[in-house]
């Protein structure tokens, strides 16, 4: 029997046999492409992106033409035929001074993105140069007990992103530190839940703008005699207060709705109150707490832009607002760049939270 097997092996099938063992050695699956799968997961999304860009391009072009026609007509009625022709040739030549100001095309946005990156490189090179230049002087100043000289130039777009991230994380942390403990305490006691419910229900739908004003009233007074930058404090506290409600409600709900079976287990095992909370109630409500934290983070990021805009705190929000006020030729496309960056970062933050959630909780829920 064994002989016949070895005979079979050498019988001309050496090549495939070798290949198979080679493949299995490296744990490679035989290369099989599922056409339908690829179509569904790769081709369709790419097509939809292309369709989006195409639609955007067409829309931008239509708006551009509308604006251009309007400009020419205005020149015609205001200044006569000559000015109208001049305007038309000016627009066609692509001169910056007379370009119609409207929704930028995908190409313009891409160009602005590259401009912003180049700008960042220039500024960071400038910063490094400044640091080198002032290094010796700063050492002397520190030795004399004076404040070192810091770079006070304009922040680049990338710097603004990091400022925004810093603010949102500070706000998120604040929300977490306030909402989770309070949520647990409220969830554990029905009396407390009933007595705080009205407060939660009333404050939950309050707009971020109002929170900002409230925080401003308080922080302004409290930081009266310090020369600290209160804009950052105001914006991160407002972000935290706006975003914490989802976590608070979810934590309270998770803690109060622990499966009765688990509570019975805790009772039968005679776990102490402390152990009951930390070994049974909290682990079982962790999935809901994390769902709340996920919502909180995305709300925080969404609200942040508006709050930065109002609080004059540096970051993406003020970047957008400044560009809008600026009204330069490429301002509109820079705003669109910021829009995409905000969206992508928001998406990434949500993914990070989902990953952490899946790591810590026993319920592996599919990411949506």
């Amino acid at each position, binding site marked *: 029997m064994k002989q016949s097997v070895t005979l079979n092996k050498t019988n001309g099938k050496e090549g495939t046999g070798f290949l198979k063992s080679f493949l299995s050695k490296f744990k490679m699956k035989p290369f099989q492409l599922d056409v339908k799968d690829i179509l569904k997961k790769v081709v369709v999304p790419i097509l939809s992106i292309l369709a989006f860009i195409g639609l955007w391009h067409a829309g931008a072009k239509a708006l551009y033409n509308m604006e251009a026609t309007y400009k020419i007509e205005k020149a015609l009625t205001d200044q006569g035929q000559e000015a109208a022709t001049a305007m038309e040739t000016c627009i066609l030549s692509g001169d910056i001074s007379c370009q119609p100001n409207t929704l930028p095309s995908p190409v313009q946005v891409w160009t602005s993105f590259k401009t912003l990156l180049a700008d960042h490189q220039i500024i960071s090179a400038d910063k490094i140069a400044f640091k080198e230049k002032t290094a010796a002087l700063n050492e002397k100043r520190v030795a004399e007990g004076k404040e070192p000289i810091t770079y006070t130039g304009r922040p680049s777009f990338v710097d603004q992103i990091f400022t925004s991230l810093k603010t949102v994380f500070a706000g998120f942390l604040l929300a977490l530190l306030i909402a989770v403990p309070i949520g647990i305490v409220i969830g554990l006691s029905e009396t407390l839940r009933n007595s705080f419910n009205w407060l939660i229900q009333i404050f939950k739908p309050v707009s971020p703008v109002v929170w900002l004003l409230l925080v401003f009233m308080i922080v302004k007074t409290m930081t009266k005699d310090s020369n600290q930058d209160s804009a950052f404090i105001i914006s991160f506290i407002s972000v935290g207060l706006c975003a914490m409600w989802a976590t608070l409600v979810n934590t309270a709900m998770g803690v109060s709705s622990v499966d009765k*079976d*688990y509570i*019975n*287990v805790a*009772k*039968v*095992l*005679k*776990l102490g109150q402390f*152990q009951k909370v930390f*070994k*049974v109630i909290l*682990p*079982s409500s*962790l999935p809901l707490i994390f769902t709340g934290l996920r919502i909180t983070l995305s709300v925080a990021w969404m609200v942040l832009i508006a709050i930065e805009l109002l609080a004059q705190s540096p970051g993406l929000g003020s970047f957008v607002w400044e560009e809008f006020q600026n009204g330069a030729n490429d301002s509109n496309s820079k705003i669109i760049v910021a829009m995409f960056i905000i969206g992508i970062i928001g998406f990434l933050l949500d993914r990070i939270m989902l990953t952490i959630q899946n790591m810590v*909780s*026993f*319920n592996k829920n599919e990411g949506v």
Partner: protein
Amino acid sequence: MKVYKMAYLELNNICKTYGQGAGSTEVLTDINLKIEEGEFVAIVGFTGSGKTTLVNLINGLLTPTSGEVLFKGKPVTDTSHERGVIFQNYSLLPWLTVGQNVYIAVKAAFPKESKFNLNKKVNEYVEMVNLTPAITKRPKELSGGMRQRVAVARALAMNPEMIIMDEPLGALDALTRGNLQDEILNIWSKDKRTALLITNDVDEGIYMADRIIPLRPGPKATLGPEFTIDIERPRDKTALNDNPIYKQTRNSIIEYLMGIGNERKAVSESIYELPDLSPKNFVA
């Protein structure tokens, strides 16, 4: 002559009512039960007859509206490590592994033991239910039978003097059920703990218990007459089918339960008039 011995577990005129006033329902009425030390008693009843309420009264999760539960002569007011419970739906903590699920129980029962000894105990009991290969798995990754074995290990690891089982095998398939019945009997006979089994399966009751007591269905459920099973242990499941005592006991219990069932049907007083309908175009 029978020598009077103080009952190990004693239920005296237990009544349990849920709710208050007009909306209240009396689930259990006038329950009297005595279980001796080392005995294996089964309570058989229909679903929804108040079996779980009865179990929770005995293990201390609920307190009776009137009457008293005495365990070793002392009234039961709270849960205790002396009475291990195996719940109907396993109630394992899903975020803990098999080992951790048992550990939390051992740790609660023996808070002063060293970690090493606790782990030794965990391993011992997990080994006993043949789950050592799955000790690091979570309940979700286990089959129903394996989960129930973890629940058994968790209840026994606390070294209780009495085991209370609330339909422990209800959700399992017939084969796994048979195996686990044997395992539970093995463990019980090894150190003769007192055991109370709640079940809806008469055969299971006869196979496992010394005495079977039917629970008449609720509301106002109460215990029926007891049936003693005089079959020698260890019992052989296949031979049991031909055992005349088995047949006779089984028939009388089922007859009794069927009688209750019929009684229950007859209680319904309202008569529903059925509409006189015939299918349209039946011929065509």
